[in-house]
């Protein structure tokens, strides 16, 4: 079943699989090549690794059961992941040498609203603008597809980070709220 945006003007790279977007940017740095990629089958197993806790901008990530994570990724409108592939001269690099270093996903109704969730960059790779690149690419893609109401919930410590990327808190006084069951409020 083709999504509306696939039927319209957006041209996708050949190996892009619905519904995930292949972001074509690649950047070289001194460690290895940082690649934006679609979600790979190994991604969800990587995501369940326990080395994520300190990296998580949203609490609760490493404790999610893998099937729940897989379902969430499958049903997200957009998922962007960053991998490091280290190439040594003369040696063949295999997909196994790729390490997941960052991820972001967005849910959407394909028309009006999108919410960005779970923006995470591995602590070792923070401070290099990878989080910024992840979010910027997401926003750019959403805007290109005319999904104009792009929202997210920012932990207190990253509000300024998102401000520099063009996000505003409480626009027109509108407040973000979360539901808690009785006894948990």
């Amino acid at each position, binding site marked *: 079943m083709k999504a509306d945006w696939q039927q319209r003007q957006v041209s996708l790279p050949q190996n892009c699989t619905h519904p995930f977007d292949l972001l074509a940017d690649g950047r070289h740095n001194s460690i290895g090549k940082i690649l934006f990629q679609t979600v790979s089958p190994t991604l969800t197993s990587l995501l369940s690794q326990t080395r994520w806790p300190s990296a998580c901008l949203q609490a609760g990530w490493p404790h999610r059961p893998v099937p729940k994570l897989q*379902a969430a990724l499958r049903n997200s409108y957009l998922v962007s992941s960053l991998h490091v592939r280290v190439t040594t001269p003369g040696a063949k690099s295999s997909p196994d040498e790729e390490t997941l270093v960052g991820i972001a996903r967005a849910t959407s*109704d394909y028309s009006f609203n999108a919410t960005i969730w779970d923006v995470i960059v591995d602590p070792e790779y923070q401070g290099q603008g990878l989080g910024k690149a992840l979010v910027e690419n997401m*926003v750019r893609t959403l805007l290109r597809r005319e999904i104009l109401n792009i929202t997210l919930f920012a932990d207190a410590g990253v509000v300024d980070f998102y401000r520099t990327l063009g996000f505003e808190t409480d626009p027109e006084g509108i*407040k973000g709220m*979360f539901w*808690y069951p009785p006894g948990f409020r």
Partner: protein
Amino acid sequence: MPFAALDGLSPKKSTFGLQVEAQRLLLPTLTKTDEQFAEQGIVFMEGHEGVNLEELNDLFEQVGFPRRDPDKLKLALEKTHTVIWIRHAKKSRWAKLNQLLGFGRAMSDGSISASIWDVAVLPAWQRSGLGRALLERLLVRLRQDHIDTISLYAEPSVVKLYEKLGFVTDPQGIRGMAFQRKSAIGMKVAAGEKRASVAKG
């Protein structure tokens, strides 16, 4: 398909089974049941199939929301996890038969996160518990799918209403944010689009 009775749980379950499941899932309780509403000729419907898009846009307009392009609206509803709307099931001087009285939807990945949008009740029917009832049923639906993170963006005038339903503002300092197009990125994208259209001649 009318919204399931028995607080949204399967009618086949025993009362004890209901209580256990409700506790386990931490289901929100319904202030008023479907039966009680049905007596007043008010029926809660789930799913987008029966929604008249023109009527929905009329409802949006009446509560101060923008009217939407019908094609985009249709797609949005198809891609929405849960749609609940309120049907006026009898003839009265307050509303036409089958008139759309209220609406609400929840966007979700069906597993971890959800956000509630476009909650609207006809002005003449506000303050009669319909908004609350709508929200309660959305919450039950989401909790039945074990969705843990249920969020929404509330205008200042309705924050208290949502607090009464169990929503918390800015928990642990988490802030709701929205992208404002009049920023560097927005302008870069717009400029890029302009260049692309010029290049095509």
